[in-house]
Structures are given as structure tokens and as C-alpha cells.
């Protein structure tokens, strides 16, 4: 019975391969600069002389798609597969029951600053080391915008298009002074179906897939018009002018064809692919996309031609959604001591400098940033923007925050796709949120 023999041999092999893991296992955020940065940091840590063999760090990654869902089920099942795992501001409330609070070294506030440390706190306890700060930039093609700002023929055309489509003849302004109206006029100008002379096929690329992260990007439009999830008494306030304007803005841009036709299936990677192809003039996108898009080997068409500013302004001013990513301690960790040692090291200036040099985006105090300020000038900008424009929605760090994002993703993409009316989508969102966020 050769099959039976083969089967038992395989069984034995399987048993072997899952045995013997004494090291510290870290589950990181896959597929982005956070991953390469964590890799470098882990290498540096493992190379240190005083790290015991059993405390060396091993990294694991799985797919971004459904990451939080899987993490949730693994944590709830008491999985000891990993000792440290990724945390995010918007997910802390959901995972805190399965995590263990940590005591960071006394020097941590001098590295990160108190404000940044709070992005990893829940109910007053510190749950992790804040390794990255995420916010949104308005990316634009410097070469194209420069020409728009200097070429009279283009400006004339810009005026015509804005008069026809937006009802007012507008003049191009610099991106750091854009309102959402300027952004809209610019995207129309750079869209071939609107302006046949446009050098690009599309004016912008929106990420409109039914996915919670895409809603975070979109939230900057809401807050800039003064919108919030709920007021101070806890009443849901999504059925407001600010939400309507933001939703209609995306819908208009999509219906006018200023963004690729399949935008409703786009997320981070697809949007970057579109922008990187050189066929897109502007993009509202995570700060994390910058290093790769600006790398001539990875994006030869657009590298060196990209400008970044904070998202456009609305009535209430200029805003960007922020959240922190970090690493925290799994309650069911198998090597807690070793894991805490790594966390403590990670909270030092030395570790964060390694991390930043390898492409990570930690928000650091000026003092901690100083030795690498030359290599990463953008990190100073990151800190500035977070301080000046950053916001978190009221309820955005609660236990049900992720479910709220999921709900909005489903309802709002339904509106953008023409599946339901604006009123229906907002009503369903408000009703669902009331259930999720009730005290």
C-alpha cells in the first residue's frame, strides 16, 4: 500500500515543519515600506551581541486583504503563532481584549513625543510602540502643474472647462492653496474625455473599492467641511452637508470620467499602478506610496516629477486623516519576555533611526529625527502635517471603529456605483452606526 506509506511519511514531515519555534515571532503589516523597514530593524536587532539565540526576531507576513479579520479570529482563538502583532489606532479598541498592555522605557516620550504615543493607547493603557504614522498627501505631477501655472493657452482652456463643468471660470492656483473646487477643476482639465488636449488620460485616480482603508482616504473631504461621525452627546451626524458634499465630489469625479473606469475596484496598489503609468495627473493617497513612486527603477515614468501637499481645503480648513501603526504584545504570546525586550529596543531612538532609514515612517521628535534628517526630509513634513492638519473621527478609536469603516465602505461604494441613492446610503449608514456606536 504505497499510498498509505506516502501519507504517513507526509504526516511526519508536516509534524516536523511546525515544531521548534523558540524565537520571537512578529506579525507585521505586509507589502509596504513598513515591511522593508521592519525587516531592516529586525536584522539590526538580531545582529546585536546581547540578544540571546532564543530571543532572535522572526518576521511573518500574510495578505493585506482581510488582514484585520484574520488577526481578529487568530487572536480570539488564542493563537500563539505570533508574539507581537500589528496594531493600528482604529483597531486598538477591537484588539485590546486579546492584547497585553506594555510598559515602554522612560525614554520613549523623548523619542516619539507624548502625542504620538497616544495613538497606541486605549483606556489609558499603552498597548504598543508607534512605528509608523499614516496620513494622506495630495500627489501631483509637478511638470504638468508647472505648465498649467505658466502656459496661457492651458489657462484659457482651464477657464473654459471650469466655466462649463463647474459653473465658474477659474484660474489655476498652486496645489498647496487648492480647495476641493480647484482640485476638481484641475482633474477635469487633465482628463482626456473632457479635454482632448490633455497630456494624461485621467485627471486623478480615486480608490473606490468596497474596502475600509479607502474610506479613510475619503474622510479628509468630510472633515475639511466640518463633518464628524458623531457629536459630543454621541448622536450620529453622518447625514450632514459635509458628508453629502464629500460623497457627491467623488461621485461627480467618477461620473465625469476623471478617474479610471474601474476605480470601483481600485485600492492602494491599483491606484499607484495607474499614477505610476504616467496617465494620471493627481492622486489623493497615503504618504507611504511616495518612496516607491519616486524611485526611477520602480516608476521610471513619474519618478522625480512628483509633488506632495496636504489634501485640499474645505470650508473648515485643510485636514488629513491620521492613524498610527505599531506593534503590540499578544496575550497568548509564547515568548513574552523576549517579545518585550524587542519592543523596548524598538522604542529607542537608535532603533527608530534604523527603521526610518529603511523606509518606515515613524513620527519622531526633532531631537530623535536629527541624525537622519538629511536622508528623510519628508519625515519632518510628516510630523508637521500630523500636527497641523491631523484628525481622528469621534469614535474612530472605539471598539467598533473597524465595523463602522466597513459599513461606510459598503454603503458609500454602493452610492458611487449607482446602486443606491445618496439618501438611502446615508440613512442606512446612520442607522448602522447608531447600533454599532451606542454606549
Amino acid at each position: 500500500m504505497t499510498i498509505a506509506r506516502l501519507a504517513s511519511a507526509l504526516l511526519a514531515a508536516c509534524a516536523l515543519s511546525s515544531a521548534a519555534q523558540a524565537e520571537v515571532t512578529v506579525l507585521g503589516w505586509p507589502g509596504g515600506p513598513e515591511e522593508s523597514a521592519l525587516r531592516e530593524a529586525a536584522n539590526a536587532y538580531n545582529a546585536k551581541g546581547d540578544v540571546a539565540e532564543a530571543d532572535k526576531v522572526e518576521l511573518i507576513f500574510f495578505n493585506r486583504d482581510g488582514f484585520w479579520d484574520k488577526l481578529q479570529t487568530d487572536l480570539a482563538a488564542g493563537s500563539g503563532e505570533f508574539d507581537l502583532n500589528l496594531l493600528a489606532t482604529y483597531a486598538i479598541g477591537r484588539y485590546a481584549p486579546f492584547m497585553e498592555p506594555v510598559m515602554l522605557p522612560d525614554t520613549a516620550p523623548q523619542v516619539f513625543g507624548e502625542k504620538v504615543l497616544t495613538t497606541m493607547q486605549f483606556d489609558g493603557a499603552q498597548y504598543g510602540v508607534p512605528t509608523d504614522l499614516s496620513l494622506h498627501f495630495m500627489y501631483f505631477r509637478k511638470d504638468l502643474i508647472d505648465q498649467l501655472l505658466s502656459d496661457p493657452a492651458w489657462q484659457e482652456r482651464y477657464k473654459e472647462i471650469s466655466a462649463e463643468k463647474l459653473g465658474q471660470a477659474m484660474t489655476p492656483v498652486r496645489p498647496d492653496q487648492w480647495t476641493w473646487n480647484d482640485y476638481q477643476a484641475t482633474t477635469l482639465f487633465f482628463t482626456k474625455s473632457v479635454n482632448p488636449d490633455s497630456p494624461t488620460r485621467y485627471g486623478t485616480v480615486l480608490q473606490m473599492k468596497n474596502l475600509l482603508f479607502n474610506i479613510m482616504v475619503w474622510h479628509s473631504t468630510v472633515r475639511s467641511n466640518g463633518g464628524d461621525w458623531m457629536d459630543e452627546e454621541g448622536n450620529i451626524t453622518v447625514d450632514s452637508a459635509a458628508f453629502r458634499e464629500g460623497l457627491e465630489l467623488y461621485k461627480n469625479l467618477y461620473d465625469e470620467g476623471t478617474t479610471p473606469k474601474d476605480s470601483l475596484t481600485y485600492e492602494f496598489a491599483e491606484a499607484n499602478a495607474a499614477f505610476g503609468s504616467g496617465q494620471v495627473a493627481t492622486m489623493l493617497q497615503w504618504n507611504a506610496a511616495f518612496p516607491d513612486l519616486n524611485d526611477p527603477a520602480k516608476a521610471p515614468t513619474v519618478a522625480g516629477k512628483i509633488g506632495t501637499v496636504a489634501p485640499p481645503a474645505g470650508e473648515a480648513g485643510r485636514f488629513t486623516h491620521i492613524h498610527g501603526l505599531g506593534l503590540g504584545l499578544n496575550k497568548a504570546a509564547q515568548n513574552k519576555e523576549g517579545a518585550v525586550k524587542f519592543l523596548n529596543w524598538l522604542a529607542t531612538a537608535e532603533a527608530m533611526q534604523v527603521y526610518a532609514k529603511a523606509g518606515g515612517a515613524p513620527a519622531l521628535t526633532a531631537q530623535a529625527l536629527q541624525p537622519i534628517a538629511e536622508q528623510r526630509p519628508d519625515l519632518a513634513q510628516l510630523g508637521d502635517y500630523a500636527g497641523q492638519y491631523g484628525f481622528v473621527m469621534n469614535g474612530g478609536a472605539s471598539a467598533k471603529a473597524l465595523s463602522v469603516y466597513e459599513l461606510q465602505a459598503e454603503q458609500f461604494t454602493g452610492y458611487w456605483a449607482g446602486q443606491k441613492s445618496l439618501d438611502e446610503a446615508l440613512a442606512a449608514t446612520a442607522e448602522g452606526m447608531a447600533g454599532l456606536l451606542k454606549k
Partner: protein
Amino acid sequence: MQCALARDGRILVAPLTIFLLAMLGLPLVVDLIYSVSAVEFATILSPEFVGLANYASALSSESFWRAAWFSLRFGLLCATAQVLIGLFLAIFLEPLLARRPWLMAFLMLPMMVAPALVGLMYRLVLHEFVGVVPWFMFTYVGDSPSFLGPDNAFKTLVVVEVLQWTPFALLILYSAYVSIPADVREAAAIDGAGTWRRLVSIDLPLMGPAIGATFFIRFIDSFRVFDNVYTLTGAGAGGSTATMSIWVYEAFFKSGDIGRAVAASMLLLAASWLVLSVVHRLSQRRAGASA
């Protein structure tokens, strides 16, 4: 002797029975319990009885019915298209395939590919900036539609499913077609029946059971589809491409709505049981009529 044989029979069937009880019976019990309980990941071991609330919540959810309608339409449309195209290819290509059986290998190839990977491949093939189909459309037609946008996603998914699984229909219908005895056809030819007459009055009726079985199998597989839709569009904008299977998956993983997800899957089980017994009844009646 007879008694000993029956005992041997039970011993031989025992491993399979025990395995099924453990792998399907136990989950079914878990399903039943959770479907009438309020339960979250944090309280997974202490479910709280809530009666039929989960069923009510699933049945009153608009998205549940949309997913059911999506799956039903998808299943019927795909099965019909696959049977029709498969039937045409089986009969039209029979002269080629009879002489060179190895040609069938190339027609069968799509069935060997994981549907999940087919979905991923279409993400590449249909991508506006790197895919060959939009490139072709832009170059030779001047414009390319949004294949995965809200207007076309359903059609695109149907085409993807039909292209991959028509080979299955082709294979079965072809083997049914070639097993029609030659003398039956010759007799009809002598009677002066033309090609069309023969097809309609001899071939198709004789292939009836095979056509029915093919349609049923393809309908079931397309109805419960998950893999290729999940990798290509996911639940889609506003849940517009959520199939039943995707709806249950998302309710469980994304919303953490365990009770509701489990209740919905029990409803799904009941529906499949219903369909099966109807099909069973029909095939029995047919067997009874022809006997």
C-alpha cells in the same frame, strides 16, 4: 453467512461514517447551536440563546436577498450558456474529435486551473494600464469599457465563469453524443430524415438525461461560486457582486456577525436540500416514465 457479510460490510463502511460524523456532523451541530445564539469572537465559548433572531436578521437583510438573487441569476445564466455552447461544440466538433481525440486535451485544460487563480489572472488581463484586453480595445476600437465597473461586473463574471467551465459541459455532452448507437442514426437516415431532423428528434432526446445532469451540476457549482468572484471583484461596490458564499464569508470574517452568518448558511443548506429533493423527484419520475 449472510449475517457475517453484513457485519463485514458495516466494518468496511465504518471509517467513512465516523469520519463524516466528525467532519460534517459535528460542524452541523455547532452550526445549529450558534444559529440560535448571540455570540461574538470574544464570547465564543458562552453563546447565549436568542431563539430565531439570527434567522430573522439574515432574512430581513436587504443585502442577503441581493446576494441570493445574484447567485440565482448567476447560476441559471452560466449553466444555460455552458450547456448551449457545450452542446454546440460537442456536436459541431465531433468529426474532428473522433479522429484526433488528443484535441480534447486542449479543450479540457481550463478545468485544470484553480478558479481562484483564474480570477487573479483576469485582474491582470483586464487592468486598464497593463492588461491585454483594454490595450486591444484602446488600440483597435478607440475606447475600452469598464469591465469590472458596476454596469459590467456581472457580465464580466458570467463570461469568466462560462469560459472556464464550458469544457465540463462539452466533455459530458460529447461523451453522451458519441455513445448514441450508430444504427439508431442510420435507421433515421434511411427514413430520409435530414441532419436537423435527426438532431432534434433523435440526438437531443437521447442526450436528454446527460443535458439535464450537466445543467444541474453547472447550476449548483455556479450558484455556490466563491473563488473567482472573490479574487476578481470581492463583494463589489455596495456589495453588488456578493454571491451567497461571499455574503456568508464576509458576515463571518468582516462583520464578526457569527450568529447571522451561521443562520444564513443553515438557510443555504435548507435551500440546497430543497433543490436536491426536487431534482431527485424529477429524475425518479423520468426513470419511472421511461421504464
